[in-house]
């Protein structure tokens, strides 16, 4: 057995202070936002000693700014704050639902948007596919200054981007689109979703899909776009049945991860149904 890990806490008041602390403490140091992931390190049997740098009190990471062109979300925004802020924002239903339905009420008060995106090895993050289908980009602050990275790129280069950088804000463009988020926990609520489909569609005058961004979460180790379905659906005025049929044809591009809670094949098998749910939700709404 392993001896209990030593864990120390450092409180940063500014991004600069946090980055300095990170530089000083080295690779054993980790930023601490809401702590809902970090505080379960023992449960995950992580035995290394750790330094935590609290960034929760940094003002520059707080707040949500909704403008004509985009929605800018501070990294330390909680899920609950995000859900409340987005209720009236057209086109953002995917993100609003993701923030409102994930976890449970108390966790939503504590867990941050930044933490949800930055947690390494967390495949079931709700906000990630939702932000992905809305073409969000991320702003990081590091020793070398500010850097803006599309979320899609970040998901592929995570390990190169993250160490030593703080995610400061997410920038989500506002475009005339409809979006939806279909998640599948095994219970009615409260457990992690075993599969997620988030989708945003730009619909033409005639109701045809001009553009679709469809993201799949929790199925593989990292969320990614369902490009084959996006392509297949473009230009169509699909019915639910069409969506399901196309989803079935294209779901094969995913390789489901086996987990204690669900086998990989299951995560892939439910994708067409989640695509249907997302589509029906999105088609029903005018916003």
């Amino acid at each position, binding site marked *: *057995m*392993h*001896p*209990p890990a030593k864990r120390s806490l450092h409180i940063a008041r500014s991004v600069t202070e946090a980055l300095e602390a990170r530089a000083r403490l080295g690779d054993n140091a980790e930023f601490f936002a809401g702590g809902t992931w970090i505080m379960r390190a023992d*449960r995950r049997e992580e035995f290394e000693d750790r330094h935590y740098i609290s960034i929760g009190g940094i003002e520059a990471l707080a707040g949500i700014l909704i403008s004509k062109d985009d929605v800018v979300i501070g990294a330390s925004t909680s899920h609950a704050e995000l859900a409340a802020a987005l209720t009236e924002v057209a086109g953002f239903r995917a993100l609003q639902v993701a923030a409102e339905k994930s976890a449970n009420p108390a966790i939503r008060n504590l867990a941050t948007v930044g933490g949800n995106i930055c947690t390494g090895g967390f495949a079931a993050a709700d906000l990630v596919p939702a932000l992905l289908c809305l073409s969000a980009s991320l702003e990081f602050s590091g020793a070398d200054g500010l850097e803006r990275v599309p979320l899609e790129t970040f998901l592929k280069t995570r390990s190169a981007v993250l160490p030593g950088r703080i995610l400061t804000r997410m920038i989500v463009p506002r475009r005339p689109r409809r979006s939806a988020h279909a998640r*599948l926990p*095994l*219970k*009615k*609520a*409260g*457990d*992690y979703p075993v599969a997620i489909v988030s989708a945003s569609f730009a619909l033409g005058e005639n109701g045809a899909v001009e553009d679709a961004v469809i993201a799949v979460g929790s199925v593989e180790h990292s969320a990614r776009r369902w490009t084959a379905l996006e392509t297949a659906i473009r230009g169509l005025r699909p019915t639910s049945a069409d969506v399901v049929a196309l989803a079935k044809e294209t779901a094969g591009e995913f390789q489901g991860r086996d987990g*204690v*809670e*669900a*086998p990989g094949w*299951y995560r892939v*098998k*439910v994708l*067409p*149904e989640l695509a*249907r749910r997302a589509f029906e939700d999105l088609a029903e709404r005018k916003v």
Partner: protein
Amino acid sequence: MTASIANPAVMNLARRDARDKLRGRTRYTIDHVTPGTLHAFLLRSEVPAARILRLDVTKARAMPGVRAIATAADAPGFFGIGIADHPLFAKDVIRYDGEPIAAVAAETLQQAQAAAAAIELEIAPLPASITMAQALAPDAPLIHENWRDYEILLEGAARGGNVAWEAKVMRGDTEAAFARPDVTIIDSCFSVGRQNHVPFEPRAVVATYEDGRFHIKTSTQVPWTVRNATARALDVPASQIRVTVPPVGGAFGLKFDCSLEPFAAVLARKTGRAVALVNSRREEMLTCLCRENAEIRIRSAVTKEGEIVGREATVLMDCGAYGGEQIFLTTMTAHTLGGNYKLGSARISSRAVYTNTAPNGAFRACNGVYNTFALERHTDEIAEAIGMHPMEFRRRNVIGDGDLGSTGQVFEGDVLGPMLEKMAALQAKAPATPRAPDDRRLFGRATTVGTWFIFVGPSSATINLNTDGSATLITSGVEIGSGTMVQSLPQIVAARLGIRPEDVVVKGADTDAAGFDLGVGGGRTTVSIGAASTAAADEVRKQILHAAGELLQTRVEDLELGAGRVEIRGVKGSGMTIAKVVQHLHGTVGPVAGTGAFTNPGVEAMAGCAMGHFIDAIDIPVFAVHDCEVAVDPDTGHVDVLSYRVVQDVGRALNPRAIHSQIQGGVVQGLGYALHEDMSVGPEGRILQSGFETYRLPGALDVVPVEIELHEGAPSIGPLGTKGAGEVPILNVGATIACAVSRAVGKPIHELPLTPPKVLDLILGDPRHLDHPHISATWIDNTIPVRA
């Protein structure tokens, strides 16, 4: 029993302990870890099977804050049920992942953990049998090499190799029945996983050792078992051990066995300090004495008319590395799987099988839950095979007055038949849940029956009457949340003494103060402790009446007790308060006390039918009829429970509201078992679900209000005709859900739990018939040959 005595006991008395529980003031065992208490931690094995080559605690003992380390040398004894096969610490051989090897006491938990990590342990891995199929393979290594040498605590059972215990029923000639030309033979196999109790308070103990005696404060259902097993493990006289029990934060059978207590006791003796040992949730998940996984084959020979002329069944129960409760639970199969229906002839083999996995234990309606699932699904398969409606089949075959149970006992009264009618009436009142036209889900409904039995066993009670007119009830009963100690017992005693239940003080269990008790579980408390308390109450009642008779110059027969007073019958205000009488007695003959004792009267089985059983016949049968409607999502495999109904045989409902609460809670635990709670053993013998993230307990959104009808009036030897009501509600939930889902998806179901992936697999796949190659269709091959 006259109505005037019986009636005052029936009421919806609210629990007296709710107020403090709601304010966070109740102090469970985990809340007794006060500053200054040493913290204990167990070094546990991380492999399923190994030989211990070297164990050296020298370095660890010298670590900061460490006050003592105990190993096998400190606890030489073996304990167990039926056979003493269980040492406290792994000594030479490790038999499961999680098995304790050493126990450390230190000033802080972190120090204890650090020291445990510093213990030097060298092991040589041994081949492990993780599944029962592996353990029963002809060439399987013996998990207990020297099983022959263990002390036998109950004679009469066959044992051998990795079969820890075998209980058998042989009534009538099944071979002849199966050979009849006019029967259809239905053969089904079933398989179920483990279920973790997840009591919110984990197993926890605080022990001290003073003046040569141990005081063990523990979260248990069985103070006397803890006392006696600890004595065996430490090889000390049981009289040196005192066990007291604070309020228990949930148990459900997990705490029906001794587990952590001897470790804390040993460390307390070594250190002379109070030592606390509390399982972490992870330990509680990985080493829980779960409801066992089981594998079952049932074969039935049934005529066209639906008569079951022969039934042969084999039930393999995984006891894990040590026999534990499963040894006893092999007894239950005769009455659960062998229950419900009239059988022309029966052969049942119920075997506890050793594997290199964490030991299992007792869980609410233990053994009954999965045997009822298997039996009811098998019954549906019979009905289908002979082309009879499943309800018609049940109506024809359920046990009624004068029918024989599997071990040949004669049942009294028609209970299940009328209960089925009550359920039909409930269904008729509420039409099937309406569905929207575009609802694509698959709908199914099922009604099942279940048989449970209450094994009463010994209990004792003392009542002191106080000069203020209150009574103090002293028993070894424990309040585990079911309400027995705060509701039915004071209600029974109060009614007997003519005082308010609020005026019955119920003392928490203390083996130094109260007499022996078998423990709180199986639904026996109200019955056994209730009967002992009734007897004790009768003694003090007699003294009061006698004294009052003298004081009032009235014959005892003309007196009655009520509202805290002794009155001349029919003349209100004619007598005096009970307090007055007690004060008088204090001054004249001394304090007023009474004691009572009770044990099972012993119901007869048919001679020679049952072998290896702890009890051959049912003291109190309890029946249940459940009904549910489900809707299954064909694309995700999610099962929505639309409605749930229960008709439960309660004998007599002393506190109907509290029984309703028990039923709602028990059904929801059953829904967890049926649909959500997946506890799987990995290839290396470690349980995969280590916490709440992966072990999914039903939440508020996953449940429905259960519609309940209590069936009263069935025969019972319980006080006032009661039967335990808390154990039974979970009994046929797995069965009912499985039968309903099976009908919804149109495929047979042979396994639980029905998690969404499993249901989707079922929907998408071809209908499959489960087969257990390691359970022979030739029944006799599943038994240990009897040596001449």
